[in-house]
């Protein structure tokens, strides 16, 4: 293994850390990135290769789960946690007192391969603090991916976080080696970004995301015409925003996410509930937002992506005064309670879009209902077999042998259909 090169201006003490110590520091620094997904790429294997690695297009694999309930799929680390920026929400900001460390490109390559060979991971998610310049840092990130792919014929998953200001040629190189590229928008509002990440600019971030979209689409287009065309970030691009550090309401966040999905053809928008970080900047709220808030935002994300709700409709599920989604019930149920005149829905007749709006019916049972009703009419017991809790569903549906009474007028509907309080405590902050 090569001795780590210490760039001028960086403490020589860093070189004394061993790999495991560096790993602890640089994984600790990376954990505020929510994404660990290894899905959405093309099928690959190593049967005709010289190295190791495979991916299966559909789903990723979670090789372990941490006690925070999160999936560990990738080796998620920073190349270095030194940074010339001073973003308040970030543990690695210039003015923070955290211990700094730095990996060489070759150390990351070796660690990725060592972990992969033992079946600990699906691949690598590499990000970095910015040292010297955006271009210098991006070169290092790209070098790791290049070496894995070219020197070791590594065919596992690679996710690279790119730096918005870096040279487009470097970002292009990143896309050639990586499955997924991400650029974080960081905060849902421009005001929040200005206050908490004064050196970052929304324009530059969105500019880079726009270029990335074009590059990904050009790459896919070229592949559809020439089989030999290089692959470019086949798992697309994603982004992340921090929830609870600025004044954005849930409605603002849902609208921002919808805008990002549409404008940059993102695969995913990740939310990270701001959590207190060691050596926090004083500009941040001291208390974390309830983790349930993050969960509700992900649910609203699913409503848009899989249930056919328009972003404005999800906004309608939020409290009109505060713009916040209810924490005690999920946003789909909140929407149904607000628009009671759309219910009950006849499971034997209603179109797919309407079935998907019934609280408690997911895409799978809806598909089953559609295929069963081609041959026979459904009864309440059928719905009971297809779902987890027919009791909560009953007020919203009509079947051959069931029709709810007085749905729209019942004042006590919410306690009937809302999950019981004890269950919530598990997630409460």
């Amino acid at each position, binding site marked *: 293994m090569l001795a780590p090169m210490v760039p001028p201006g960086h403490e020589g003490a860093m070189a004394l850390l061993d790999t495991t110590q560096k790993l602890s520091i640089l994984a600790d620094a990376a*954990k505020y990135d929510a994404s660990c997904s290894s899905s959405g790429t093309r099928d690959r294997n190593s049967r005709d290769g010289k190295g190791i690695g495979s991916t299966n297009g559909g789903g990723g694999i979670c090789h372990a*789960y941490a*006690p925070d309930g999160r999936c560990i799929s990738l080796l998620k680390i920073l190349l270095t946690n030194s940074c010339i920026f001073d973003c308040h929400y970030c543990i690695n900001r210039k003015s923070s007192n955290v211990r700094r460390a730095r990996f060489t490109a070759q150390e990351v390559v070796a660690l990725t391969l060592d972990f992969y060979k033992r079946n600990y991971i699906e691949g690598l998610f590499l990000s970095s603090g910015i040292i010297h310049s955006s271009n210098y840092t991006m070169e290092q990130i790209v070098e790791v991916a290049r070496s894995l792919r070219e020197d070791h014929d590594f065919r596992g998953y690679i996710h690279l976080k790119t730096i918005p200001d870096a040279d487009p040629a470097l970002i292009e190189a990143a896309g050639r080696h990586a499955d997924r590229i991400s650029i974080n928008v960081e905060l849902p509002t421009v005001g929040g970004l200005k206050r908490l990440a004064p050196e970052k600019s929304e324009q530059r971030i969105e500019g880079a995301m726009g270029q990335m979209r074009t590059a990904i689409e050009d790459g896919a287009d070229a592949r559809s015409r020439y089989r030999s065309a290089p692959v470019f970030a086949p798992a697309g691009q994603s982004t992340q925003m921090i929830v609870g550090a600025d004044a954005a309401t849930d409605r603002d966040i849902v609208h921002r996410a919808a805008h990002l999905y549409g404008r940059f053809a993102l695969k995913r928008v990740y939310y990270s509930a701001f959590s207190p970080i060691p050596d926090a900047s004083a500009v941040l709220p001291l208390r974390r937002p309830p983790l349930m808030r993050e969960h509700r935002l992900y649910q609203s994300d699913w409503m848009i992506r899989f249930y056919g709700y328009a972003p404005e409709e999800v906004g309608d599920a939020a409290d009109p005064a505060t713009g916040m989604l209810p924490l005690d019930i999920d946003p789909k149920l909140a929407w149904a309670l607000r628009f009671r005149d759309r219910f009950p829905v006849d499971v034997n007749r209603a179109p797919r879009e309407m079935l998907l709006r019934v609280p408690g019916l997911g895409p799978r049972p809806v598909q*089953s209902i559609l295929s069963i009703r081609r041959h026979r009419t459904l009864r309440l017991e059928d719905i009971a077999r297809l779902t987890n809790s027919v009791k909560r569903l009953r007020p919203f549906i009509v079947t051959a042998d069931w029709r709810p009474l007085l749905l729209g007028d019942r004042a006590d509907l919410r306690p009937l259909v809302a999950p019981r309080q004890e269950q919530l405590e598990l997630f409460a902050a």
Partner: protein
Amino acid sequence: MRRIRLEAEDDVDGWRGAARALAAARVPAEDVVWQVGDHPTDLFAEDAPLPAGPAPRVPRRFLSIAAHAALHRQPERFSLLYRLLLRLQSQPHLLEDEADPQLRQVEQLARQVRRDSHKMHAFLRFREVPEGRFVAWHEPEHHILRANAGFFVNRFTNMKWSILTPGGSLHWDGETLLDGPPARRADAPGADPVEGAWKAYYAAIFNPARVMVDAMLKEMPKKYWRNMPETALVPELIAGARKRELGMIDTAPRRAPVSLDSLREEAMGCRRCPLWQPATRTVFGEGPPDAEIMIVGEQPGDQEDLAGRPFVGPAGQLFDRAIAEAGIDRARVYVTNSVKHFKFEPRGKRRIHARPNAGEIDACKWWVDQERRMIRPQLLIAMGATALRSLTGRPIPVGQARGTAVPLPDGGSAWVTVHPSYLLRLPPDADKDAEFARFVSDLRQARVSSFGAKGV
């Protein structure tokens, strides 16, 4: 009774061949006994040859469900699948009826087998042994070992590896795959030099501020733990989590005077509730960033809305007089409102003050919390019901709490008194001087409680 002998527990092809012939001959499911290897299942069954007939037709999806369900450890699986196959001959659309109990049962078997395979891909751990060979010990629940060989060959093609299980083993030398006998845990290596780094990674990537043990256990049940080295760390990580999170909060710096301006600037564009629309502007708090006293009022009034500064109207003037009498230096107080926009009802040419509702107070609480966080006052005073609701998060009658310090949900406390506008709206027969004196006395008492008799 007819006996069908299958080669092994995972002999899916054997089952398929026999089931096809049996179904062609319309042999009822009750007349078939499925037997794996030489274990006799029914002493009176016989191995009679099968009569020939037209091959049964089944949807492609059935084959996929059967290929998985047949690997389940449940002994009745072969018979169950054959039953379903027979029903499919008379009910060709059976697979479209997901509410059919028998189909659901078979699908559940298939689902459990798929999950077991998925968990094998995920949780199997290789350990390196000399000569650069990698060996894993894994305990699958179902008969899935050979069915998953392809996954590991595709992934670790250029590696030499063995997978040992209690039901059999697989060995890959880079070119050919060999089937081996059942193994014991002791046959596998007990450690690997890279495990230390992996455990360090597992401990570091965990965020102690968000412990969710149930979510972890749902996806990684304890039955898998004994073959995963990193899980040994789980108890200590959970035990230490609360402490580490508190450490994060404790080490948070106490003051940041500079940032108050940028917070104010951000608040100018606040759209957290609809009150911004009719109001002229956000009226943010005012005072020195290192103030020792923070006083929270209700909301800006007509004059404050126009001036963009808190406490400049009639109530503000009364307030200035009262704190001066209470011995508090106004220049060292940070004053702010619970709601930062003026809420009013237009009446003719005048804008009449309207009480903010709970939703508006809660929406604006975010800003008040930020101000508190930055100012970190030694003494916090809530004036009126709105301020009390904002700081405590619940409705408390001012009359009850007045003159005392109420505890706040995030620690700390707030002294309670009336809002100065209350003094302006007293009925004509009330003793205005006495009420004013009482207001002053509340403020003085709060001051003395924090700073002693000599003043701020």
